[in-house]
């Protein structure tokens, strides 16, 4: 059954959309990731223009993160103070990102920007995760434990602030910068940015692992909501029915994924996720490098 998307102005198979939503939901449940970085490329592959895919992806992440955040708030694993500091950076970053997005859109280069961002970030993250989880598997076999981080240059910066929930006393500059970077990515790539923020919070800021996910979700919701608004107001590229369908699949998929995730070992999961990320990266990368069948394109919805 086909369904006509009013903003994207294409007709897509309903079950394909629900299936994509479910698949990404399963993966996000299994790996504990938002899934935005998989949804947006999947929408590209379905022929939805990058401008609509990015804006709608941001809207969909609001929904999937919200149910996650509720669970974390109940367990009190959210550092609200840190969340707000990250958020300040995030909002500025999102505004900058949308400005960059609209500028490149007027030049006709937004498609390239989005794809390049995906290739670069998916490539880096995929490779890092792959190497790290391989090492982790090797280390657990040898019975070694991973090192804990120590004091670094972060602790020499001014404007220090006490973060009670995280038990940290650090400068606000690094979290603001982390938030800023994630905000730009949210606006340009239509992702939550958890895959950048979570490692940054653990390794750079030294936050305890148990509050990392909840705090990042807190920041992601507000930044993606802000991004959705910016895209809706400046480009009119948020496709509501598309977001709702992805979300329906995603919600069900996430519950299935959580069950599967509990039955597998963390390292195996991470290697799988790394391979998946590298696969999506390779597909997008090849499309940039190989000569396309059609060299010409007509500027479509959102100018992409």
């Amino acid at each position, binding site marked *: *059954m*086909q*369904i*006509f998307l*009013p*903003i994207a*102005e*294409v*007709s897509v198979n309903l079950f394909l959309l629900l299936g994509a939503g479910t698949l990404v939901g399963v993966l996000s449940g299994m790996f504990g990731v938002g899934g935005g970085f998989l949804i947006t490329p999947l929408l590209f592959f379905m022929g939805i223009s990058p401008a609509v895919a990015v804006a709608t992806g941001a*809207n*969909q992440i*609001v*929904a*999937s*993160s*919200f*149910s*996650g955040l*509720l*669970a974390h708030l109940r367990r009190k694993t959210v550092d609200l103070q840190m969340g707000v500091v990250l958020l300040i950076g995030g909002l500025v970053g999102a505004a900058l990102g949308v400005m960059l997005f609209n500028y490149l859109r007027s030049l*006709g*280069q937004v*498609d*390239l920007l989005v794809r*390049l961002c995906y290739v670069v970030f998916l490539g880096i993250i995929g490779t890092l995760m792959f190497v790290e989880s391989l090492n982790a598997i090797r280390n657990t076999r040898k019975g070694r434990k991973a090192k804990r981080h120590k004091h670094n240059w972060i602790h020499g910066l001014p404007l220090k602030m006490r973060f009670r929930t995280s038990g940290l006393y650090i400068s606000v500059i690094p979290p603001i910068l982390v938030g800023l970077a994630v905000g730009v990515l949210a606006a340009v790539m239509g992702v939550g940015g958890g895959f950048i923020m979570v490692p940054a919070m653990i390794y750079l800021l030294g936050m305890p692992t148990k509050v990392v996910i909840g705090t990042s979700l807190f920041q992601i919701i507000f930044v993606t*909501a802000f991004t*959705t*608004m910016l*895209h*809706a*107001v400046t480009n*009119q590229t*948020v496709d*509501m*029915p598309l*977001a*709702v369908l992805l*979300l*329906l699949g995603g*919600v069900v998929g*996430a*519950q299935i994924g959580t069950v599967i995730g509990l039955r597998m070992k963390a390292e195996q999961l991470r290697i799988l996720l790394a391979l998946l990320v590298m696969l999506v990266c390779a597909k997008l990368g090849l499309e*940039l*490098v*190989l*000569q*396309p069948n*059609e*060299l*010409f*394109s*007509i*500027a479509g919805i959102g*100018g992409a």
Partner: protein
Amino acid sequence: MMRWLFLLVLMALPAWAEEEVVLGLSHDRVSITADFNGSEILIFGAIKRETKIPEGPPLQVIVSLAGPSREETVRRKERRFGIWVNTESVVVDAAPSFYAVATSAPWREAITQTEDLRYRVSIPRAIRSVGAPMSVMNAQAFSDAIIRIRKENGLYQLLENTVAVDQQTLFRTSIKMPANLTEGAYEARIFLTREGRVINQFDTVIDVQKVGLERWLYGLSRSNPMAYGLLSLTIAILAGWGASTAFRMLRNG
């Protein structure tokens, strides 16, 4: 009323005005609903004449259906630093979002080149491009690209020999419109030709419109984007909250 009179006068102008089109349409309105999957329009009619059928080569019928025209930016990719990047772009002044032309005979027999120029019947003639920047070499390639890309998507169609004409009096054809249609007034034109010359033309309009929820959402996103954005967010948050509550209740029995 005046418009119809004017049209009638116009139709009386061509040399062999004794043959006229009487037209029927399967529907004069296409509604884009949520499950819209393209539409097929049946265009049929009769040729009204006071005298008997003239001698000589038979009458041919050409039917064209054109969606709303608008300015299009066409971009060309080139390899830069190993990747394919959009470089040159040309703005084509007016290209119809949809264009189908059906004939009752092979193209060359149906209409001559001069008549095609005058009435803009063939696909390349339906596109207007004058303002290509001087810096761009081979601007024609950009117009050709529009035709090629839209033909592939079923948006431009050349349907030779698909108009059935019975005894030079009755004709019918059907045009398939794909799912990815643009809203607007679609202009249907019917030409009667003899020896490639147009002897009568009849115009009518088919409305293509989004309806229901589709129309409402699209309208809201343009007229009040702030409200649209807030509504999207509200739905997203409600869905997220609803899902988490539902599954918690499920787990707790």
